[in-house]
């Protein structure tokens, strides 16, 4: 094994250790009752509220109460694990563990979290629709398919960001001659 590949392996394992450590720290932060009550629950209620509005605009008669979305024949309660925060934690731990400039990390975190939440909103709306109109498919859609899709999306977003970050980090600084000309 060459020296370069040993070094690459060492960096790879270092990333993994930082990732796991950050994930554990993030878990204890979001699972602590003060943070859960003051941040996570209101945030989840916000997801329920936005989902309810979108469902109503699509013609479904949905009522929202806290983190619950209900109709006359079906209801869901958005819990931890369904609010996109868990994928956000995974994405955040990976981005922060990856060697990069802080400004790029913060931009990646912000855009990634927004993208994950957008997909999760779509997930909540479609799951409610499935529960209402195709209840037999709800359990497998909820536990396996959508959960996997959202997490996979978070991982792919990280890989996309990390690939771009590596390119940007390794690219030489542009000189005056390299810059594109106008016109």
């Amino acid at each position, binding site marked *: 094994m060459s020296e370069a*590949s040993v070094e*690459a392996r060492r960096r*790879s394992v270092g990333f993994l250790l930082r990732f796991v450590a950050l994930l554990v720290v993030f878990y204890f932060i979001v699972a602590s009752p003060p943070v859960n009550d003051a941040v996570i629950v209101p945030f989840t209620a916000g997801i329920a509220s936005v989902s309810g509005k979108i469902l109503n605009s699509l013609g479904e008669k949905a009522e929202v109460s806290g983190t619950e979305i209900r109709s006359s024949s079906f209801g869901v309660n958005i819990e931890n694990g369904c609010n996109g925060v868990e994928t956000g*934690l995974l994405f955040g731990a990976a981005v922060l563990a990856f060697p990069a400039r802080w400004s790029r990390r913060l931009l990646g975190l912000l855009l990634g979290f927004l993208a994950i939440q957008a997909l999760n909103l779509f997930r909540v709306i479609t799951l409610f629709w499935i529960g209402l109109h195709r209840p037999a498919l709800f359990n497998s859609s909820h*536990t396996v398919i959508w959960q*996997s899709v959202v997490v996979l999306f978070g991982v792919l977003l990280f890989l996309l960001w990390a690939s771009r970050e*590596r390119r940007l980090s*390794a690219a030489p600084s542009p000189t005056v001659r390299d810059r594109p000309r106008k016109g």
Partner: protein
Amino acid sequence: MTPENRRREASPAPGSADPLLTRRAALRGLVGFLLALAFWFGFSRAYEKTLAFGSGALTNLFESPDVTRLEARDGEILLDRRDFPPRSARPGLSGPDIHFNFVLLVALFALDPRPLRGAHVARFLAAAAVLWLIHVIALVFQVHSVYVTSLGAWSAANYGRVARNFWAAGWHFYLIAGRFAAPFALWWLFGRREEETVLEKPRRRTKGRRSKG
């Protein structure tokens, strides 16, 4: 795919041999995800039997007398104890909550430019074996989280505060973070080989052909 994208997939990342995420890799991941879903729906019940056996045996190792019995049935793992009253209800633990992340592991391994080559499949099998072990341990935590939080006076009498927090927090950590992170960490550890990537990618670039995925 544009020539620029082909060039990116065929050449190593500057300053690193890590594989880049390309459209083709994402497409392979999607195909792997769909195949894994089909496999998961077909074999999850049989898989749960192996989990119930492994977790039951592991739990019994640290019990005296060994009273816990786990039985996989219809997507649930029934938790029984020999000292439960015969007519009391048996808790049912959700199997998919524990092991659906197998689908993620397959999808991530499918990102590789040549996912079916022998060495890669061998590494996938090693990662899947570790994931099975993680599932077994997660089920042990779930069983004990039921013991420490859901059996009323019996729980309070048999478990102290430290034990309650250890088992309940361990299971909660798996639910919130561990089950999502495990496939990613295993893929990162087993599924990416920097030295192989360095050797393979320039060869494909000199051929100037699109790689078969």
